[in-house]
């Protein structure tokens, strides 16, 4: 049968996603948020999620809807601060002990996802050494410098945004849309991309930015 990873609806895309899932959501600075899929996940009401998103309450991302709907029990991110002067819903829930929060340097956040997808359980990095974020983590010297052991992040589900997908699940991205998407797709058991358009014919080999081997389902959402 021809490989065909296209699905007809966001509901179909999310089929099989269970309570307690670790959900990886891409996006940075307004680019690359899979907001159609995130909204559908919210509507689905899947609970007890671990949300892995660089900026957990970015104003352009619907991840804050998941948080406000009480579906998230843990957040892994590099930025957990709301944009307003007051506390964001995430900060309120965190203050009240209702949400667990893990903050990583952004480079370690990205690298731990890449490690998760690349079969590397842990790696050493200089980022965070000598800071509060090193607390409880192993420090080890290589050569003349100290490094921190960081472990891989693996997700049950990745929700990423791309520009074009072909039936093989190959993806191309517009401009800075890729950001955490490729690493998240490789690190998730089920990787779903929402895209502007899907096509029957292949994306030319040199224009593919993420191989369909890493992508399980693609949904055309326009826009």
């Amino acid at each position: 049968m021809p490989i065909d990873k296209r699905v007809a609806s966001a509901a179909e895309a999310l089929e099989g996603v269970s309570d307690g899932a670790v959900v990886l959501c891409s996006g940075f600075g307004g680019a690359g948020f899979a907001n159609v899929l995130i909204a559908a996940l919210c509507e689905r009401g899947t609970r007890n999620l671990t949300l892995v998103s660089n900026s957990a309450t970015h104003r352009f991302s619907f991840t804050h809807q998941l948080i406000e709907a009480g579906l998230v029990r843990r957040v892994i991110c590099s930025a957990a601060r709301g944009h307003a002067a007051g506390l964001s819903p995430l900060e309120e829930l965190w203050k009240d002990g209702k949400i667990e929060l893990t903050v990583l340097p952004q480079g370690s956040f990205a690298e731990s996802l890449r490690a998760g997808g690349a079969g590397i359980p842990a790696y050493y990095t200089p980022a965070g050494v000598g800071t509060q974020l090193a607390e409880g983590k192993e420090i080890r010297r290589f050569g003349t410098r100290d490094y921190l052991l960081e472990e891989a992040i693996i997700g049950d589900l990745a929700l990423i945004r791309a520009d074009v997908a072909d039936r093989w699940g190959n993806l191309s991205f517009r401009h800075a849309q890729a950001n955490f998407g490729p690493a998240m797709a490789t690190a998730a058991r089920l990787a779903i991309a929402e895209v502007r358009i899907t096509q029957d014919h292949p994306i030319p080999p040199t224009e593919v930015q993420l191989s369909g081997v890493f992508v399980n389902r693609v949904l055309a959402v326009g826009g």
Partner: protein
Amino acid sequence: MHPLNRLQMAWRAAQDIEDGMVVNLGIGMPVACGDYIRPGLEVVIQAENGVIGAGKLADQAHADSDLVDAGSRRITLAPGATIIDSTASFAMIRGGHIDATILGAFEVAANGDLANWDMRIPNKGPLVGGAMDLAACARQVWIIMEFNTRKGAPRLREACLLPLTAPGCVRRIFTDLAVVHVTAQGFLVTELLPGLSPEDLQARADAKLHFAPDCRPLTTPALALPE
């Protein structure tokens, strides 16, 4: 005494950028450095979200929400640019391929310790972003910040009071009152605002300031802040 405004501080920092450098500019004052790079130089501006060769801000007609920098500003690409993903971008940063990163800060210590990520506001969530990777791994870390807080507290200190971003990483500090290098001996003032005496500056710091024998006046063009 006319302390530098934010654009003038960015201008001064930008004058130290050398031809051919790969430079990462932090959110806030540092990104303004991109507008003041000395004429005739070609510099590669790296944005942590993967834009390698960030250009000017996009005008209304060309603004594209998919083409943004680390501060979510809609930008253009410079000639010779490319875009990589976040993992590759931080591999570039962590791997020491950034010649200089220019960041904002709350405090810098005499040994180069940097505190720029957590102001300890009660219950505000942590926001570390890419600062720790940049501070720990760029070949040079330069800081743009006011010499004192709004309440007048010193930002140049014997030891940082706020949580560290990275230890011993800062090399140069561009402030509204002075340019300060961090050396093995501690803070070395290389430029001082006209009208301000070394004693005046020392009184505003929490650490011993050394003054370079050839300490020059800190002067910049007039640059008006936008309304």
